[in-house]
């Protein structure tokens, strides 16, 4: 039994039992962050806040949502949107946040790629981040099923059909996933379970892992400079804040985070109240009808690049390309053969690779939305080939990179 003395204050009482002072130092006031950063470093905080927004708005939706194929659509579009006090607000917030979170995820991901924040000890941050991307994707897909509109139903039909594996004809697997021959009650209920319990719990665990993976390597900086955190911390604590290369997480980094969050929320709430059709597609305001396919089916924007890699090829080839696209980002730290952990602008061919990849993914996204008529079909085909080509080229490009 540890030695406890009579507490001198509430603070002392908590400190003796929970070590709040040590926690405060390690996680907040002496969690040293490089000073040489830009606003892109705030994307992590924005993601945490957006996830929090999704959780809270989700709680109020959960109070009234009915996971029954006959009741789901009206429980959302009548009860929540038009009866519940501020129900429309939670629904709009939840739908817009679910879409915007992926914009921030992509910005966050590409920031990491640009600055080399997946290398030299930071591989676990990258991998746990990619797992978070997969988890968020699953969460978004399962959530989209719930309103049980036309897009919910047909997206469910199409995506679960992927698991038949083309020529493998694994129809039994598809039926097992659905719990029925088509997306029906069993399907809706299990995706409700995934969306409300299993995946959020997984996400929270992965966030913990992601934060934990960050602690030892420390946050990266704009120049990829290797900082001696002990030396710089000493400078800061001695009073020389201006010359120190580090800042505290609380309040230094946090205040900059909050500034970016404030500006982000202006953009976010503008979308929630005035410009939300991109996040709540009109097609999904038609109740699900298994006997009628909408004229145009498409996934939410953040899945479009992936969808477009599947589309232009024949069934089996497309499925292989699609699987490749899902997995390949995980391998980035290992495919990048260069030792340089500096911004892409200083990495020769990798700089071109970066911008080519970004532009290619935007082209894939755009082509994934439009009907596969000409010239879009051809553009999409070549964009998909470019994607695969870029990844194959990566090890070679980076092997040739001069050490900076």
């Amino acid at each position, binding site marked *: 039994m540890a030695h406890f003395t009579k507490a001198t204050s509430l603070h002392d009482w908590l400190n003796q039992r929970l070590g709040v002072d040590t926690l405060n130092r390690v996680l907040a006031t002496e969690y040293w962050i490089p000073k040489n950063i830009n606003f892109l470093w705030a994307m992590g905080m924005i993601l945490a806040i957006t996830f929090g927004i999704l959780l*809270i708005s989700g709680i*109020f939706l959960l*109070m009234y949502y009915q996971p029954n194929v006959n009741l789901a659509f009206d429980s959302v579009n009548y*009860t929540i949107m038009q*009866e*519940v*006090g*501020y*129900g429309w*607000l*939670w629904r709009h917030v939840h739908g817009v946040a679910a879409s915007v979170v992926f914009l921030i995820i992509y910005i966050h991901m590409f920031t990491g790629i640009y600055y080399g924040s997946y290398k030299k000890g930071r591989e676990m941050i990258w991998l746990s981040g990619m797992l978070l991307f997969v988890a968020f994707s699953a969460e978004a897909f399962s959530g989209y099923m719930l309103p049980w509109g036309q897009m919910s139903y047909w997206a469910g039909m199409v995506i679960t059909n992927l698991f038949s594996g083309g020529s493998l004809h694994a129809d039994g697997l598809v039926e097992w996933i659905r719990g029925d021959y088509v997306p029906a009650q069993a399907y809706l209920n299990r995706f409700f379970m995934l969306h409300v319990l299993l995946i959020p719990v997984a996400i929270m665990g992965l966030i913990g892992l992601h934060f934990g993976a960050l602690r030892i390597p420390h946050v990266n900086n704009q120049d990829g400079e290797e900082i001696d955190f002990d030396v710089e911390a000493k400078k800061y604590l001695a009073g020389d804040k201006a010359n120190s290369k580090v800042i505290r997480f609380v*309040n230094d980094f946090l*205040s900059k985070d*909050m500034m970016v969050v404030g500006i982000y929320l202006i953009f976010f709430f503008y979308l929630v109240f005035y410009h939300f059709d991109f996040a709540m597609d009109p097609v999904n305001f038609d109740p699900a009808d298994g006997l009628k396919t909408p004229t145009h089916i498409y996934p939410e924007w953040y899945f479009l690049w992936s969808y477009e890699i599947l589309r232009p090829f024949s069934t089996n080839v497309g499925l292989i390309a699609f699987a490749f696209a899902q997995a390949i980002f995980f391998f980035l730290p290992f495919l990048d053969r260069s030792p340089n952990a500096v911004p892409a602008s200083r990495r020769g061919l990798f700089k071109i690779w970066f911008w080519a990849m970004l532009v290619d993914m935007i082209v894939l996204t755009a082509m994934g939305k439009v009907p596969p008529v000409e010239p879009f079909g051809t553009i999409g085909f070549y964009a998909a080939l470019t994607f695969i080509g870029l990844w194959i080229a990566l090890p070679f490009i980076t092997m040739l990179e001069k050490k900076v």
Partner: protein
Amino acid sequence: MKNSSRRGFMGKAFGAVAGVGAVASLYAMKRSWDPLPSVKAAGFTTLDMSIYKENELVVEKWRGKPIFILKQSKEMLDTQDKNMSQLTGESTGAMDKKRLIKIGDDHFLVCVGLCTHLGCIPGYNADEKSFLCACHGGMYDDTGMVTKSPPPRGLDIPPFKIDGNKLVLGESSPEYEKMIADGVTLKV
């Protein structure tokens, strides 16, 4: 020093603004918990009082609760003075009359069919003209007054409004307010 106190102020000011947002969000959350308009609208039941027969208990529904409608026969009205309260040892006649609702020439007992003891539904015996609650043996007379313990008070009367031949439950009226004032029932 000037700087750090200014920073402390700005931080607190920002915190206060964030707090305002938090409070507004809490208000919206509270409103989301409120009963829905359709629930509140269903809080009114209209009864056509012309369909009931004397000394025949009919159970209607109001706000999910059973409602006893017992049309009083002439015999029931005449013998009211003879009912003795087990609690006071006196005639319950005066109180009995105040519990009834007069619609046209008819008198009705309209009360919540839940025993005021612990909430079971008492049964009505038309021959004995009394209610018996099977759970703990409590009894009431044909106007809902307690005649045998353990119920602490007579069967509660819901807010009502007389509308010609109809009775609207859930809406108050001067007649109901008078019942409350006379101590005939607690507000439901």
